[in-house]
């Protein structure tokens, strides 16, 4: 296994990039979450001014897979772990990881492309700012499998969309395209596919200037990130 598998970190000047690299569609497996955790431990020790998430491939992430959820949560539970304990070691841990990303002391930008659904969308929602490519598709399709959002998607969607549109979004499990997502406020800016990553990094470089560090941190605090 190379150190570029799953999730890896690149730092240039004062901008950190977390690159999702688990082709074909960056499924959020057990490995993915533990790699993300390790990368995040490195990120908090860096002196950077902004962080960008993007995918090395066509899709940001098609979300978690059911097998992964069965392994991480269901197995321990069925083996006698106890409901709350099994939750704490899997689902609750993932939620805490996403909340930690949201609360980093500098702006976090999600550059979304292709499919960005389920927990992939939830990772995007944990970013402070989202830009996406024209071909991006977003959704919370969990209900098609008889489930609900598992990484605080319901909370973060409610904050952005308000109750009724958040409910509609989750309870119908339908996808929205980049235009609709932008209208709904899920996305800050839509760009051409090929401009996505350069644009995200340019934005991050703007934020990452050393003189802005303290102001950025206070702005995030004031907005209750």
């Amino acid at each position, binding site marked *: 296994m190379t150190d570029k598998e799953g999730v890896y970190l690149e730092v240039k000047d004062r901008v950190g990039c977390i690159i999702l690299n688990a082709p074909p569609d960056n499924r959020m497996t057990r490995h993915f979450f533990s790699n993300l955790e390790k990368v995040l431990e490195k990120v908090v020790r860096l002196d950077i001014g902004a962080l960008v998430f993007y995918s090395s491939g066509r899709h940001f992430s098609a979300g978690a897979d059911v097998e992964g959820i069965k392994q991480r949560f269901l197995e321990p539970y069925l083996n006698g772990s106890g409901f709350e304990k099994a939750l704490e070691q899997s689902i609750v841990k993932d939620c805490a990881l996403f909340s930690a990303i949201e609360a980093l002391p500098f702006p976090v930008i999600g550059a979304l492309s292709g499919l960005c659904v389920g927990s992939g969308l939830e990772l995007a929602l944990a970013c402070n700012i989202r830009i996406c490519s024209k071909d991006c598709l977003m959704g919370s399709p969990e209900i098609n499998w*008889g489930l*609900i959002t598992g990484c605080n998607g319901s909370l973060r969607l409610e904050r952005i969309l308000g109750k009724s549109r958040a409910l509609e979004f989750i309870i*119908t499990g339908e996808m929205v395209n980049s235009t609709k997502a932008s209208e709904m406020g899920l996305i800050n800016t839509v760009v051409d596919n090929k401009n996505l990553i350069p644009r995200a990094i340019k934005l991050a470089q703007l934020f990452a200037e050393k003189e802005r560090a303290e102001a950025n941190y206070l702005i995030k605090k004031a907005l209750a990130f």
Partner: protein
Amino acid sequence: MTDKSGCLKWEESDRIGIIKISMPPKNLLPSPEFAEIGVVREWISQKHIRGIVLTGEGRHFSAGADLSYFNFTNSKDCISEFNAGKELLDYFEKLEKPVVASIDGVCLGGGLELALACHMRYCSERAVFGFPEINHGIIPGLCGAERLAKVVGRSHALEILLTGSTFNSQKALKLGLVNGIVDASSSIKPVMEIINRIVDFGEKPVSYCIRAVNNSNTKDFAYVSLEESKMFGDLVIGQYGGFS
């Protein structure tokens, strides 16, 4: 079981309960307590009922309160009546079965308050919305101002309430007041399709979705986050934890 309470009529279409506001011709609400909550609860809590469509009988949803009713001599007298109406609206809002409004014609004042208590709203192209109370020197009495502000934001809510003017379906869609514009002209068919598709997903996932979103309006993120995880875990166990 009665199928009428106050100005609300009840019909069933398979798993969907249809509540019709029925006071022809404009479905004016005769009093703040426009239906008996005990009866409405009885209709809705039947096991086979999995979702509710709220609509107006005839051409309009509701033109609001019948102002000829308001002749209180003592403001304390009206508080208990308003509380009864509010209780009914709160019941709809917190219900863990989907309540979807299908709005045609006018949806004003108390009628709009009723619609705002629903989980989602769809309207026809020709629907007209507004809070005209200020034209009569009063304010909405069933938490309409509060719910409106939550849905459309402070400034738009103030504009609507303070000008007392009406607006159309396009504006309602832009404001997020309705989820969509559908062919609801004298028909609840589009909304029935939507709610049936939702109800097909199963009772528990649907009720947990509603609970997760209802919970979200809070500052206690940690508590609500844990509640979401518990519901998620419960669903996983239900779906995949059985012996196969």
